[in-house]
């Protein structure tokens, strides 16, 4: 029932599959590059934020007045 002879594969089958496969590879590379850039940007942002908030509060520049005694 299923043992029919194979239909002849079109001669350009591999060519079409390769064209589509190359597009797939290209899109994958672009996606990976974008993800990498996003990751680096996130790391830089995290670093900057950490640096900005990690300083201890500055000491007061003025001496508080001493009253009484």
């Amino acid at each position, binding site marked *: *029932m*299923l043992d*029919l002879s*194979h*239909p*002849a*594969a*079109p001669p350009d*089958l*591999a060519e*079409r*599959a*390769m*064209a*589509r*496969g*190359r*597009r*797939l*590879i290209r899109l*994958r590379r672009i996606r990976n590059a974008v993800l990498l850039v996003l990751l680096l940007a996130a790391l830089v942002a995290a670093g900057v934020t950490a640096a900005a908030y990690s300083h201890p509060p500055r000491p007061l520049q003025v001496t508080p007045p001493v009253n009484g005694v």
Partner: protein
Amino acid sequence: MSGHREIQERRRAREFEAFTAGAGGRLLHAATLLTGDPAEGERLLVAALASTFADWFRLHGEDPYVRTRQDLAERFTRAHRRYRRPRGGVLDRLPPAERLALVLRVYEGIAEEQSAAQLGMPTERMRTNYLRAVALMRSRRP
């Protein structure tokens, strides 16, 4: 660096072309049995082959034929609705799931446990689909 990549790409193309020349006819037959329509089968196969081509260096010893057939079955399962309407072919009278079960078991000779596991469905369901397919093929002669 780019020279190395070029050599790799040439090797990929050469090996893939040899593979397609050898296995293309058989895979196209399987795809056409599934879809019922030769043009539609070819479309499905080109998509599956493209994915195999893209992953050619990441097969890690896996047989590209097995990989392509697996991809074909998955694509067909995902697009079930598209193939619900009969489109001609020998298995015209079967619903898509039954057609898939029959093609994988009879034409490709894969054990039910294996094909079920690969498609992420219970073996029991695969067997039921296959038995229903056989019953349907026997019941109504065109």
